[in-house]
């Protein structure tokens, strides 16, 4: 089994600490979901894992070999990221076919036939300039590059941004089909959590430049739950635990509790325990500062 290991990753942009001492292990053969608020550091982390950008400090390795400026390691990774429609000197004059030709040169396992099929599936005109594409169409191009790269570790940064529901459904189906066939590793960063949650075997939550959790999605769903009952009972339950989103109305209180791995929650009969969806967990964990 191959693994990408990031150790002690820090990334500073002038006065901003985009990533703070991040440790992360990515195992092969899984679909990871990466979720976090805007500016949490998801794209920065993916770009460092794929050696597209340098970390201020820390090390990324793939099967023990460092990734930075290592062709052998980088050839195993594809991070298909957002395509800019403008450059500092005007519109981006590249066409879709230019991106596909470039990808054919760059990725050692590039599947030209598959890319051609995907262009037809998404009804794209390869002769069209990327500066003339809608947000959804740009996402389609990044999806095509990611899937046709056939890279062992494939990262997609908000691949469904701007896609309509039909195209999103198409993408999820394509992704699953590809995964069944190749069993390669995907990391998908997304804001449309509810839709994609079922795809994620593991979920990585990035919060304020740190990894809040990286664990099996079912395990995460099992250990984060909402408890509601009298204020005294809920206070007793949250004491000494990691908890979020505490709300109180009169003497009724509710809170989201994060249990320790393997821990079983023993609650009085008067306390209601409600399982949460991945989106609700995300809201509880990352939405606090907004509510405060």
């Amino acid at each position, binding site marked *: 089994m191959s693994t990408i290991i990031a150790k002690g990753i820090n990334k500073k942009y002038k006065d901003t600490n985009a990533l703070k001492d991040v440790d992360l292990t990515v195992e092969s053969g899984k679909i990871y979901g990466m979720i976090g608020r805007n500016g949490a550091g998801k794209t920065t982390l993916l*770009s460092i894992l*794929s050696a*597209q*950008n*340098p970390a201020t400090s820390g090390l990324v390795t793939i099967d023990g070999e460092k990734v930075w*400026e*290592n*062709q052998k390691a*980088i*050839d195993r*990774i*594809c*991070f298909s*990221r*957002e*395509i*800019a429609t403008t*450059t*500092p*000197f005007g519109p*981006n004059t*590249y066409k879709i076919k230019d*991106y596909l*030709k*470039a*990808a054919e*040169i*760059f*990725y050692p396992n590039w599947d030209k036939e598959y890319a051609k099929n995907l262009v037809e599936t998404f009804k794209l005109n390869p002769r069209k300039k990327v500066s003339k594409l809608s947000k959804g169409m740009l996402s389609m191009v990044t999806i095509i590059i990611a899937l046709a790269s056939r890279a062992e570790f494939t990262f997609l940064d908000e691949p469904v941004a701007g896609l309509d529901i039909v195209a999103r459904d198409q993408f999820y189906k394509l992704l699953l089909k590809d995964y069944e066939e190749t069993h390669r590793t995907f990391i998908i960063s997304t804001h449309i959590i509810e839709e994609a949650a079922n795809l994620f075997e593991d979920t990585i939550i990035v919060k304020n430049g740190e990894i809040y959790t990286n664990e099996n999605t079912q395990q995460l769903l099992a250990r984060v739950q909402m408890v509601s009952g009298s204020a005294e009972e809920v206070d007793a339950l949250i004491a000494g635990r990691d908890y979020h989103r505490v709300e109180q109305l009169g003497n009724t209180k509710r809170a989201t509790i994060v249990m320790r791995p393997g821990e079983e929650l023993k609650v009085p009969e008067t306390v209601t325990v409600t399982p949460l969806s991945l989106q609700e967990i995300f809201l509880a964990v990352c939405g606090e500062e907004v509510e405060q």
Partner: protein
Amino acid sequence: MIKAMRFFEREERVNVLTMVLGSIAMYLYFWILFPQDSIVGGNLHNMYSAFLMMIGAIVMLSDVIQSYSRRYCLMISGGILRKHVFASQVVTQILFAIFNTLVITVVYLVVGTPVTPGKIITILGLLLTAGGMGNLLAVVTDRFGRPAYIVFILICGVLGGMMGGFSAAGELKWVMHFEAIYLFPIGIAVLAISCFLLHRSIMNLEVRS
């Protein structure tokens, strides 16, 4: 490195086409503007080499800025090592300068203009200087943004105006008055200094898209 060179080879086709079509367009422009019995009009076939050199120099000046604005990020995000991006950029520049010099030499030979090794080295030196200047401008533009770009446009405008003035006065051959011994080392020096800065800049480049 091979992947990087293959990418640049595709990109350079546009530059070669620009050089050829641009010089033909200049030739036609002068052919329309100056009658056959004028000094410029009568000497137009000899001037075609100078047009090739001018367009080639402009292409070399502007090419790295193009690279900075779109090629480098695309290459790095496609998994090309930064050191290979840098090396292939420089090799491409040198190959383009050599190719341009060869084309100019062939044109000289075809139209019957005397060619000396000194002249060829001078042309190569001029083109390498243009490439080096292009590297410097790209690094400065990347560092300081649009104002630097505007300065670049102004410099090109002034240079273009000067070239136009010289050619109108029939003195476009002023370039040849430089001794090869000066221009070639200048070209190499400018290219070497600019390469040092370009390398540093590429190694620290933040890929954003």
